[in-house]
């Protein structure tokens, strides 16, 4: 008697952010469609991916995303846990898995963490900052929530290309630091353009009575950068990498304080 076999169809989508391609595998066609919509502009037509993540969808019974995030490493395997997802990722095998409900927020968080871990080894980082390209150069505008990332993005002139209004992606390449567009959105809820440019300057945002740019010391620059870097693990090696990345960046890229009114004229000083 012939055996009974059931073949489960598997769907994949490759999402390339910062030229780092991650393939997400799922057996749920609706979830795949949601991924295509969520990461529109960052879905790669290439079959090649640097990493594979299998997504195992669970019924909506987990704790909420407000639970504390834990990112730990054991025997070369990263364990990510936030209540609304549990994920594992092993850089050596370039493979990982995610258990989550069918929502875009959990996968978004996992992607940010995995990209952060990948970039840390390469001298790059994700940064709480808006970023835009003007005249072929990228400008970063860093600040905590309420500092003005969304406002400066909204005020951007038509000749500026918005890379993100929330999370910037910075890689250290041979030619220097390069900022890439990201699909990680803030209040503007507008996905960034999938393009890149050399980083010309980082501005630490402050709102004030006039538009002005002020110099700051190198140590203030490093403190400002570190305060806004996405950083998930209390892992010694990762701390060393992130710290070195911040110090190297401020050695090579001008970092200044940008005080601005909610006024489009601020862009006359940029680019």
């Amino acid at each position, binding site marked *: 008697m012939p055996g009974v076999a059931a073949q489960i169809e598997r769907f994949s989508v490759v999402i390339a952010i910062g030229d780092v391609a991650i393939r997400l595998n799922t057996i749920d066609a609706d979830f795949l469609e949601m991924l295509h919509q969520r990461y529109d502009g960052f879905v790669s037509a290439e079959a090649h991916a640097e990493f594979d993540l299998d997504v195992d969808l669970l019924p909506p019974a987990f704790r909420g995303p407000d639970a504390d995030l834990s990112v730990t490493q054991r025997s070369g395997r990263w364990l990510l846990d936030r209540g609304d997802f549990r994920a594992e990722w092993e850089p050596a095998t370039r493979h990982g898995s995610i258990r989550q409900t069918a929502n875009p927020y959990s996968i978004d968080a996992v992607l940010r963490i995995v990209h952060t871990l990948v970039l840390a080894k390469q001298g790059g980082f994700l940064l709480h900052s808006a970023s835009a390209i003007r005249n072929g150069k990228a400008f970063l505008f860093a600040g905590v929530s309420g500092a003005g990332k969304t406002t400066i993005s909204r005020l951007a002139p038509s000749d500026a290309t918005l890379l993100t209004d929330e999370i910037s992606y910075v890689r250290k390449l041979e030619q220097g630091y390069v900022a890439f567009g990201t699909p990680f959105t803030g209040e503007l809820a507008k996905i960034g353009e999938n393009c890149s440019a050399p980083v010309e300057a980082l501005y630490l945002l402050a709102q004030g009575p006039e538009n002005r740019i002020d110099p700051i*010391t190198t*140590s203030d620059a490093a*403190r400002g950068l570190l305060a806004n870097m996405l950083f998930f693990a209390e892992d010694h090696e990762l*701390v060393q990498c992130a*710290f*070195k990345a911040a*110090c190297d960046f*401020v050695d090579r890229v001008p970092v200044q304080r940008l005080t601005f009114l909610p006024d489009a004229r601020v862009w006359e000083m940029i680019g």
Partner: protein
Amino acid sequence: MKKKLYVARSPRIAARKLGEETLVMSAQGSTLFTLNPTATVLWQAADGITALDAIVERHICSEFEVEAEQAIRDAEALAEDLARHGILLISEKPISSTRNLTVQEQYR
């Protein structure tokens, strides 16, 4: 007679001198510390082998024109503070390897 103290930078931190200050980041809570120029001198000289009073006399009194007795008291207080945050190790014996220190000796 007062015992000598020896200080060494913790291996569980990342540090960089930027201008006259030094930034120190601890893996414990990813906490960032800024050392002023005087603390930077102490930090750089904290090799685990040179006694704290010798560091103060050689590097701090000469550079900052301060009286030795007061400077040593200030340095001990600073060292205790940095040790409490886990970024500096203190021992009454020279610190050749941080692995040989107990936690109590490290953070007193």
